């Protein structure tokens, strides 16, 4: 990959993160409970107001001083303090919730990418065939279902009805003194249903997108070349159509991450999975703005990083960019 390509992508990501920081800074100023709004409290005397102003740095100009101070604090991991979690630093609150969400979304992405690309590629290659009619039909239905709509019937049938899996949470209370294998088993059984919900939700859109990418690729001249070479259909698909159809998918998958996390939040709510989604709900009902803002910042930066990674992977997969 050329240093220029890489450099350009890094700069782009950096600029985006800066824009997100500025956005977050402005929101921070609007928030109920923010210093600006506290100071407008009519019950304060003029002296107190001036003192607070000086203490919070509001006597400094908004740009650059206050912005710089905000960015400095954010970069060093100071996102303020949670209201709901009794004054804990937001960073700590987030750190406790990130793990479960990463586990859920990460595994779901892996399964959905493998399954979705395989189904979509095959359906598009044999357009109008059996896999296409059934697979694409099912994918369209899944694509139309919010993750929690997939999750709710899963609970009704497999947890509440058949009792195969627990209805909620990530662990059974009192498991911490059990052997590690039992703990893993417990975690696994809690993970199955939320994982299935998020995976199915993702699978639909990936398979539809891959299908149309393969259909576009199928009409390329090099596919005709491959057919003229007398190669078997499967080989043409695997060696010529698939690698080319994969390229646009890399970018699409990264851009989707924001939607995926938003969807995962709803799935977590259904399954009381103790990740960012559950945290969001708690923070939302308590109007815990510092935490909400921290969640947004975290998700936004993750998506930017995912896009950067996608650009790098793209550059690796496509020799036209790599050179």
């Amino acid at each position, binding site marked *: 990959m050329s240093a220029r390509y890489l450099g350009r992508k890094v700069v782009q990501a950096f600029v985006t993160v800066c824009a997100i920081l500025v956005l977050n800074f402005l929101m921070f100023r609007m928030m*109920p409970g923010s210093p600006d709004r506290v100071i407008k409290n009519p019950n304060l005397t003029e002296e107190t107001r001036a003192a607070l102003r000086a203490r919070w740095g509001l006597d400094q100009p908004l740009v650059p001083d206050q912005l710089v101070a905000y960015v400095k604090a954010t970069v060093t991991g100071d996102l303020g303090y949670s209201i709901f979690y009794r004054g804990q630093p937001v960073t700590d609150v987030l750190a406790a919730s990130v793990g479960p969400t990463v586990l859920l979304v990460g595994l779901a992405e892996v399964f959905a990418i493998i399954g979705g690309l395989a189904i979509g590629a095959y359906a598009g290659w044999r357009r109008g065939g059996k896999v296409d009619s059934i697979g694409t039909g099912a994918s369209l239905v899944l694509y139309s279902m919010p993750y*929690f709509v997939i999750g709710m019937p899963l609970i009704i049938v497999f947890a509440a009805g058949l009792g195969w899996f627990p209805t909620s949470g990530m662990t059974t209370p009192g498991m911490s003194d059990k052997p590690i294998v039992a703990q893993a088993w417990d975690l696994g059984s809690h993970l199955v249903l939320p994982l299935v919900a998020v995976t199915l939700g993702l699978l639909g859109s990936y398979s539809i*997108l891959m299908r149309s990418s393969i259909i576009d690729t199928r009409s390329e001249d090099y596919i005709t070349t491959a057919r003229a070479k007398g190669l078997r259909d499967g080989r043409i698909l695997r060696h010529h159509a698939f690698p080319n159809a994969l390229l646009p998918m890399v970018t699409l998958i990264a851009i989707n991450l924001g939607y995926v996390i938003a969807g995962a939040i709803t799935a977590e709510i259904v399954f009381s999975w103790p990740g960012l989604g559950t945290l969001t709900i708690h923070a939302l009902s308590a109007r815990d703005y510092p935490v909400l803002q921290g969640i947004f910042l975290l998700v936004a930066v993750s998506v930017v990083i995912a896009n950067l990674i996608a650009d790098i992977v793209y550059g690796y997969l496509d020799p036209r960019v790599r050179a």
Partner: protein
Amino acid sequence: MTPLVAPDPLPPVAAAPAGARRRPGRARTFVGQVLARNDGRIGLLILIAFAVLAAFPDLFVGRLETATTATGRSLQPPGGGYLFGTDELGRDVLNMTVHGARISMAIGLMATMITVVFGALLGIIAGYVGGRTDTVIMRISDFFLVLPTIVLAIILAPVILDIVGADAELFGIRATMIVIVVVIGLTSWATTARIIRSQVLSIKMRMFVDRARVIGSGPGRIMRRHVLPNVINLIVAQAVLTFAIAVFTETTLAFIGLGDPFAPSWGQILNAAQSAGAPGLGAWWYIAPPAVCVVLVVLAFTLVGNALDDVLNPKSGARR
């Protein structure tokens, strides 16, 4: 929900004789072609059914039941006068679901209008004017494509509601609804703008724009009289796909708890079901009707949208 159309497609219909599309005869065949497809027909049928429900809910199930007018027992299973059972307050689920159609689809319609008007406007300007204007609009749309707007909405919605008050109204529409509509607009204008832009770029190449420029039409007139008519079909297809995304997003936001409890959309009903613990209690009748409606409507819009898109933009599907 993921937009099904890639944000930066190849110039879509460069090969098709778009100049001819304005003729009414073509428009008729265009609709005919969509109706000739199974997906287009099924989708349209579902949509018409829901449009009727949304237009005249009182005709089918009477007025919207509230906690005070509810007659049933709590979480009553289907049967005994309640086709779909009751919710935790004893309200008829069928009644709420039918009324939910109106709210969900009204929000979807408003959000789609905002998205398409802004997306198409910015897309046409970016594509036609080009140069620095184009660069700026595209950079901003890049930012919005990357930005997790739904997550942003989760923060912004309560902030705005705290500031203006949840009961505030604008043009008789409650603030909660407006916030949701704006948020959906913010989420999806960028995709529309990009698709329209790339189409405009290919139209710009065509001769008749040059001809119009030579005879002294201003850019505004050219965009209105020459560019717009040629992208209108694409805008319609895009609007239909956006509608699907809007209903989907509204359901998600309402489910998270950003909806208006006094205007129960399907997402809002599902949120109430979740709060009442319906999944764990096995109260499927509380969940299934609104959930099935959401899926049907989103699916129908997606089917019709794809059919429109395919008819407009026949990917060389004939080739093997």
